């Protein structure tokens, strides 16, 4: 008898869970982001008050994983707004046809070179650069000149100093691979393939994730042995900003930004098809492109705002300059070749 009762209670609980989805406040705007999304609470709260809405953020993993979740839930979207698709995944997002166009009036104030989607389904929110960071103290104490170009890294002088991420499991790794493809191309005496063969022979270390590369292998963080790492152009500024008092005058690390060799990563926002709150979603997209949100971006996510004329903190201007000529590849070409490039890279470097 008792067992039957338990069964009934159990079934009832499941039925209740199935029948009543989240008990809802008046209006909720659901925003799906990648796990690295960050913003100041008061900035979001201002949007909530102004629009009488509760913004419910959910994190979907890294950029690729988040996008895949959005694609898989296409028929019944997990959210109204999707933030965090970058230009390496732009093609996949557009061809999956999960977003609705929104020609936001705020786009007029957004840097035109970032607007990679003419159909206005993905609107640029921020951008950053994948760059080589080096450990200042290491190079000083070893009396070695800091390498200036990608080619330098294959010289015997710099043997065993570099750590890179696996492009099959890491987005900075993929961005760095794309930078070398943009720099060396497929033809000529030195192709991106032969470049990586040389890097491998020069004992470049490959690890699966940025965390491992930066915190475990890079010498500037106190644990690792390798003084050059593939990271972000804002990493040195971040190190200085977070350095314990007394703060040094310069960051413990520096950027190597050779011309045409820093891949620009642009992050986009879009409104999902079938959004339950399309009006609010449009207002939220406008808000993400507004002065208020854009000026919050640098110190929260350590990338540059996409809006023209938004002041960035001094620490960005001094220690995280925008590279003069970034590496760039057309998103369509990335979408068409990404898998082949990764496969070939795996054969060359890990095979």
């Amino acid at each position, binding site marked *: 008898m008792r*067992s039957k009762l338990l*069964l009934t209670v*159990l*079934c009832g*609980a*499941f039925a*209740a*869970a*199935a029948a009543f*989805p*989240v008990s809802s406040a008046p209006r909720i705007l659901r925003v799906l982001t990648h*796990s*690295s*999304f*960050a*913003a*100041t*609470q*008061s900035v*979001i709260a201002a949007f909530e008050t102004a629009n009488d809405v509760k913004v*419910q*953020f*959910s*994190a979907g*993993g*890294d950029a*690729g994983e988040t996008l*895949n*979740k959005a*694609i*898989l*839930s296409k028929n019944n*979207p*997990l959210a109204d707004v999707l933030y965090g698709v970058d230009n390496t995944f732009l093609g*996949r997002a557009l061809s999956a046809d999960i977003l609705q166009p929104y020609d936001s009036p705020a786009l007029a104030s957004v840097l035109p070179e970032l607007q990679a989607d003419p159909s206005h389904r993905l609107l640029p929110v921020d951008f950053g650069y994948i760059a080589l960071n080096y450990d200042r103290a290491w190079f000083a104490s070893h009396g070695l000149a800091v390498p200036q170009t990608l080619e330098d890294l294959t010289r015997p002088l710099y043997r065993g100093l570099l750590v890179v991420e*696996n492009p*099959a*499991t890491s987005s900075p790794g993929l961005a760095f691979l794309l930078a070398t493809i943009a720099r060396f191309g497929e033809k000529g005496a030195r192709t991106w393939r032969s470049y990586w063969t040389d890097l491998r022979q020069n004992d470049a270390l*490959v*690890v*699966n*994730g940025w*965390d*491992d590369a930066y915190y*475990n*292998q890079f010498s500037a*963080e*106190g*644990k*690792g*042995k390798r003084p050059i790492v593939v990271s*972000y152009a804002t*990493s040195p500024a*971040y190190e200085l900003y*977070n350095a*314990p008092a007394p703060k040094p005058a310069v960051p413990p690390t520096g950027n190597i930004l050779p011309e045409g060799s820093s891949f620009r990563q642009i992050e986009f926002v879009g409104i999902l098809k079938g959004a339950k709150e399309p009006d609010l979603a449009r207002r939220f997209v406008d808000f993400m492109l507004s002065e208020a949100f854009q000026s919050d971006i640098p110190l929260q996510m350590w990338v540059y705002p996409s809006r023209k004329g938004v002041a960035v903190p001094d620490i960005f201007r001094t220690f995280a300059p925008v590279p003069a000529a970034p590496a760039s590849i057309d998103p369509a070409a990335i979408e068409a070749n*990404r*898998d082949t490039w*990764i496969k070939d890279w795996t054969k060359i470097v*890990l095979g």
Partner: protein
Amino acid sequence: MTRFSARAGAAGIAFGAAPVIFLCIFLVYPMSRILALGAGPLLEGGAAGLREVAADTGLPRLLAASAGQAVLSTVLTLVFGLPIAWIFSRFRFPGKSVLKTLLLIPFVLPTVVVGSAFVELIGTGGILEKIIVLLSGNPDANGNLTRSLGAVLLAHAFYNTAIVVRIVGSAWSGLDPRLEQAARVLGAGRARAFSRVTLPLLLPSIAASCILVFAFCFSSFGIVLMLGGPRMGTLETEIYKQSVYMFNLPAAAFLSLVQLLLTVLVMFGYSRIQSRTSVVQNLKPVSATQRTPSTPGEWTLVILCGLAPTAGFMLPLAALVFGSFQSRSALTFAWWQALFAGAGHSLYWISPLRAAVNSLFFAVEASAISLLLGVPAAYLIAKGQASRQAIGGIGAAALDLIFLVPLGTSAVTLGFGFIVSMSGPPLDLQGSAALIPVAHSLVALPLVIRGLLPALRSINPRMRDAAAVLGAAPAAIRLHVDLPVLRRSFLAAAAFAFTVSLGEFGATAILTRPELVTLPVLIFDSLSRPGLTNQGQALALGSILMAACGAGLALIEQVRPRGAEVF
């Protein structure tokens, strides 16, 4: 009389059906939805297409790597686990219950935390390297053991030794020592008595733990990615790459199916062995099987086989706590301060205390659900296997296999399956708080059932018959005959379900809402953000998770009924 048994039969079917329905809704349905998405394009290619996918993903290499590391991991886990199980089940000594709780803690830790702990211990700049540098005087000495198969095997053994210790230990502690003594009296040597008497009786529980360890390691993913280095690939890491980075659903579906089929095949083989090796015996209470070590030789054995390996297992845990107080090789309290000061204005911040409460709450719910479903399921399986009718045997074998399926299921694929199937009609469970403990119990069920089965099978039917002859009703037989025998396994199963739930990350991360965040999700969140503070906070949170697990397990040991001593 007939009416009564018909009613009992109907109740039995309803009772047995509940866990099956549960599994169908939360495992079979989402898996089939996501596999169907990939299978469409896969089938269009026909046999040639399949061969192409197999060649493209390097299937033979993946299979060899997955199976090879899983077998080696299982062997290593047995090497560590069996001596500990022996010491724990045959001897009484001070501090034993604390040691047992400590041994179960690795089981609760999310892979990201175990990965970090091993890196702190045997990675570049880790504790081992510091010791080597200190001893050799060479500041450039290399003490890195990560990015190797060995590191993966060690981490797997670290994770799974608790399974061997708990499952084999609970069988061993109930084993009548007089059986072995009789063999000795009859002239058998120590080794012969062990290999001819004790080992055969332990075989079912050893096999049960082996199969669980093998299944866990076979589909292991985070550990391989973090400690195996970029050249090591298993089925599950390839599924991850294919589905997350390449979004190649057909290839991912193909690999998930291969993994599932192989696991089921291995399980099936194991069930055959299991039903052949099971022996009915009269289990003894701990008071009759355990003694205090009496000679210096026995004390040495206890220390060598029990205490020393346990202490070894504590090293990564200690490294984790140590790491949470380290910044660039200097002592710091900054990470702990930051944790409780709250990144204040950050959006996803939730107090670690709140996350710990959430975690414990879900763990209690998940333990309850998985025991409620697992006990009847285990009963049905044991009963079917014992029955002489073919239909009972086949039914039991089928049930047995079904409940092992969660172990062979690709976690990455199931996660995407939840997204496809739970976010729209007929099941809209997106953001539902009830789904989290449900998902946890899905993972815990195979463990609960596996833990209960050997004990259930060993119950002597004559004891039940005797009770029935003496007039006991079926319920009374369960209470007075079955329950005392089952208590130990029941508690072991509860502890497993509890720890599995505490440490579960994959499903929770998909199902959670900000206010429902658990400790593992919070840890993962910290690790995925840059900055030494976040890395340090993750280690501090890992330490809190360990403490929560220890506290919860201590509580389970406290609430146990009088006389139900777990080995």
